[in-house]
């Protein structure tokens, strides 16, 4: 047996001994948080979907951190890919003879026809998921990812020329930057209206208690959609 394999087995045994008790612990799951949310959650946050209530209400600060992780990852990934140079030479190109496109890997007319028709529908569905996140399963992040796949569909179906402004990198970058700034301004605005950081600044102006969550959902959705969309487009090898 090789020395490195012995090391691996040794490490695996040690780690399994350490984590096994945590995995198998059968201590009664705590109910305090659940009971509080079941009683007061809708009243306090205005959202029927309690996961959304936690995600954008009780623990919105975590969500802010999470969008920042995404923003940094997108910026960094794009930077690294650009630094590494053009895409790899593809030996299994599906390009049809005579096509003059740069980015023609793994593409047929079939794919193109289907994705370009589906793209707008997927976008619409993404906005639905985004807007109804406080009532039903979904929310800004989930909706944003659906929007991003809509953008990818549009990019796949664009036959090499940018038929929609939505698949241009600079346009997506602008949407992302503006959405990030608006997200920050919304989080901070509570400090100046006297509510406090990340407290609902619309409390006294809107009859809809979930208004703040809805606005946050839309902004996060736009930011996530634009960010993941631009990352996928760059990974596709689009100019």
């Amino acid at each position, binding site marked *: 047996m090789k020395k*490195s*394999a012995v090391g*691996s087995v040794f*490490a*695996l045994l040690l*780690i*399994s001994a350490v*984590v*096994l008790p945590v*995995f*198998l612990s*059968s201590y009664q*799951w*705590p*109910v305090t*948080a*659940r009971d509080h*949310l*079941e009683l007061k*959650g*809708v009243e306090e946050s205005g959202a*029927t*979907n*309690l*996961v959304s*209530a*936690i*995600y954008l209400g009780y*623990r919105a600060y*975590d*969500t802010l*951190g*999470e969008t920042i*992780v*995404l923003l*940094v*990852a*997108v910026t*960094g*990934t794009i930077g*690294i*890919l650009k*630094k*590494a*140079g053009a895409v*790899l030479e593809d030996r299994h190109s599906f390009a049809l003879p005579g096509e003059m496109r740069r980015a023609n890997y793994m593409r047929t007319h079939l794919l193109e026809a289907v994705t370009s028709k589906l793209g707008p529908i997927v976008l619409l569905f993404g906005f639905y998921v985004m807007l109804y996140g406080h*009532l*039903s*399963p979904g929310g800004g*992040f989930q909706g944003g990812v659906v929007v991003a796949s809509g953008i990818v569909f549009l990019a796949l179906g664009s036959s090499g020329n940018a038929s929609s402004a939505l698949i241009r990198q600079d346009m997506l970058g602008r949407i992302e930057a503006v959405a990030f700034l608006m997200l920050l301004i919304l989080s901070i605005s509570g400090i100046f209206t006297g509510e406090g950081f990340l407290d609902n600044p619309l409390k006294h102006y809107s009859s809809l208690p979930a208004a703040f969550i809805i606005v946050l959902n839309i902004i996060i959705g736009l930011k996530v959609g634009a960010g993941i969309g631009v*990352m996928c487009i760059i990974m596709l090898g689009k100019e």
Partner: protein
Amino acid sequence: MIERLLLFLLFLLGFWGILAKHNIIKKIISLNLINSAVVILFVLEGSRIGNKAPILEEGIAGIVDPVPQALMLTAIVIGVCVTALSLALAYRLYKAAGTFNIEDIRKEVSRK
């Protein structure tokens, strides 16, 4: 009990992949495996105190704990971000060294 044992095995499988596989793409996939094992464990155990989804329509009672679901949503997104970044790094390493084998990459990089 059996679910938790299976998740434990999934976790070990992922850890083994990170430890012993030489291909960096496999290492990245293994990282996703251990992340998933913990995420599933958290959500699964959090659902033991109820049997309804935490969407409080009229007449719903006995919901599962919504806190783990919200937390794991964050953890999943962070996992995706780390994966995207590590794949980009793997791509750059492949361009620099012409291989995905971690030991060969180390040799190639230290030679340059």
